[in-house]
């Protein structure tokens, strides 16, 4: 028996009796399942309620203007897009755990960067503002002053979102995940160390 076998014996003889029983693991799984189901049900419920409200508004507010209809449709499509992307994210989380460690780290890095960028991207906000611009046209068009004032405010809002909020969020999210990305790079470097 060499000296490392002794180390191995020490390692394998560690106490593990207080590990959770199979019953408590099954309970934890049930709890997890319920929580996950609740999350999905809440998301779908929220989406359905928003959709129904929007459809009700479309029916109730009998507009003949195409801009109002386009605005309403953009809102509905945007809601669908956000719901589908959130559900896809929940599904993907499950699959990535089956990768080998090196691929997992690559995936983790790519995903974190993408998430930080997506959170910073003002595109969904800009689309919402465009939908709003189209939607409120009918209301604002009743008076020219109201129309100009309303649209100047909305244009300023778009400029602020694009040139101030967007870059600020990118910078904030980058600095937030930088430490994490550095750690991933550090581990990746460990895997590249070979026969030094």
């Amino acid at each position, binding site marked *: 028996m060499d000296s490392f076998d002794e180390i191995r014996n*020490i*390692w394998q003889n560690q106490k593990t009796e207080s590990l959770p029983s199979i019953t408590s*693991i099954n309970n934890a*799984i049930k709890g997890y399942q319920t929580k996950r189901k609740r999350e999905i049900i809440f998301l779908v419920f929220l989406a359905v309620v928003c959709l129904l409200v929007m459809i009700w508004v479309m029916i109730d507010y009998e507009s003949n203007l195409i801009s109002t209809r386009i605005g309403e449709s953009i809102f509905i499509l945007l809601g669908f897009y956000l719901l589908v992307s959130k559900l896809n994210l929940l599904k993907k989380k499950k699959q990535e755990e089956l990768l080998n*460690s090196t691929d*997992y780290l690559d995936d983790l890095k790519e995903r974190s960067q993408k998430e930080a960028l997506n959170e910073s991207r003002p595109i969904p906000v800009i689309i919402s503002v465009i939908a709003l611009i189209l939607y409120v046209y009918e209301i604002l068009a009743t008076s020219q002053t109201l129309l100009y004032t309303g649209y100047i405010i909305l244009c300023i809002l778009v400029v602020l979102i694009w040139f101030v909020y967007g870059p600020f969020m990118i910078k904030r999210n980058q600095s937030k995940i930088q430490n994490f990305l550095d*750690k991933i790079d550090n581990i990746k470097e460990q895997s590249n160390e070979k026969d030094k």
Partner: protein
Amino acid sequence: MDFDTIYKEFSAKIFRLCLSYLNDTDKAYDLTQETFIAVWQNLHTFKQKSNIGTWVYRIASNKCLRQIETDSRVKKISLPVQIEAADFDNSLEQKHIFLRNCIAELPELDRIVIGLFLEDIPQEKIAEIVGLSHANIRVKIHRIKEKLTQKFRDNGQF
């Protein structure tokens, strides 16, 4: 293999693997539980072609690596680099603590590699779990073994 059998066969091994990475019993218990929730969730995707052990260890290793996200937010209190021999008598429990502290000083990937090796996982399987070449794993294991053995010798733990 059903979930209960997998849990019975691998829970202690996975716990020790998590312990080798975290050097914290409570966190290792939590991570073991998280690993088995993920095993249960993904069990239907397991293909009989691969070894169930390799598959479970792969999930556990990734769970361990995921901890760097938490570690980047929480400041760690570093362990003493050298542990004086006088601090320990030779009881088994103290040897466990000494070994865990020695492993805690290793870089993240080395902690996973040695954790798997100490569980008698063949080197080819470790390479498969970690995603490195067999040659790379062999070199790593050789170096870590040397380091740990030396530490044990220097501190009179044999």
